[in-house]
């Protein structure tokens, strides 16, 4: 059944929990046949660096890393998919990822620093706006 809706998500936050929410929601939309584009910008762009998912802290209760260790242990116990698995399935289901070039300049991040297997395009806010103007759903995380 052809689906005319589309969703865009901006990931501005760099917290592990927030990036995870974005990827779960992205997977959710794709699972009901709604195309999704995620635009990673500012702190969110750190998630796209090589091994970036592993380096993210929790946005709250990180407790110098202890909070993150605890939540990862809980995730493993409850068989919750990791960020890496969620990103992989996001791409496999046809999701699109755009990396913000302005953030790359500001933070001195080069293309070689990023995980190329995840990124479909590089773009500025204009790219996000053009994608979003025809989207029925847009989220800022």
């Amino acid at each position, binding site marked *: 059944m052809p689906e005319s809706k589309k969703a865009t998500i901006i990931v501005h936050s760099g917290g592990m929990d927030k990036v995870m929410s974005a990827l779960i929601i992205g997977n959710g939309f794709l699972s*009901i*046949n709604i195309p999704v584009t995620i635009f990673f910008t500012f702190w969110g762009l750190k998630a796209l660096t090589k091994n970036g998912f592993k380096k993210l802290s929790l946005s709250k209760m990180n407790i110098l890393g202890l909070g993150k260790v605890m939540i990862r242990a809980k995730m493993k116990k409850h*068989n919750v*998919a990791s960020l890496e698995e969620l990103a992989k399935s996001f791409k496999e289901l046809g999701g699109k990822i755009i990396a913000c070039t302005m953030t790359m300049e500001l933070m001195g991040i080069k293309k070689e620093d990023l995980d190329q297997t995840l990124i479909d395009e590089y773009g500025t806010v204009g790219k996000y706006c053009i994608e979003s103007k025809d989207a029925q759903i847009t989220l800022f995380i």
Partner: protein
Amino acid sequence: MTASDVKENVILVDCINQNCPMPLVNTRATIMKSKKGDIIKVIGTHPQSFEEIPMALDAMGKKIIEKRQEGNKWYIVFEV
């Protein structure tokens, strides 16, 4: 054993012990690889997915043939 089990083209999706959103994601991934008329049977244990997957299938206009709970496992059979 239901009528759908003896048809050809029954594709099994094993989501046992998988947690949200993977049962939904794997169901969708299997739909993408199948063709119209194929029958897909999803088996899982995550309670919320047993509610969520039929909702998603309805939203996509897929015909649900059967859904049942047996012990801690649930089965959802639908046509692509």
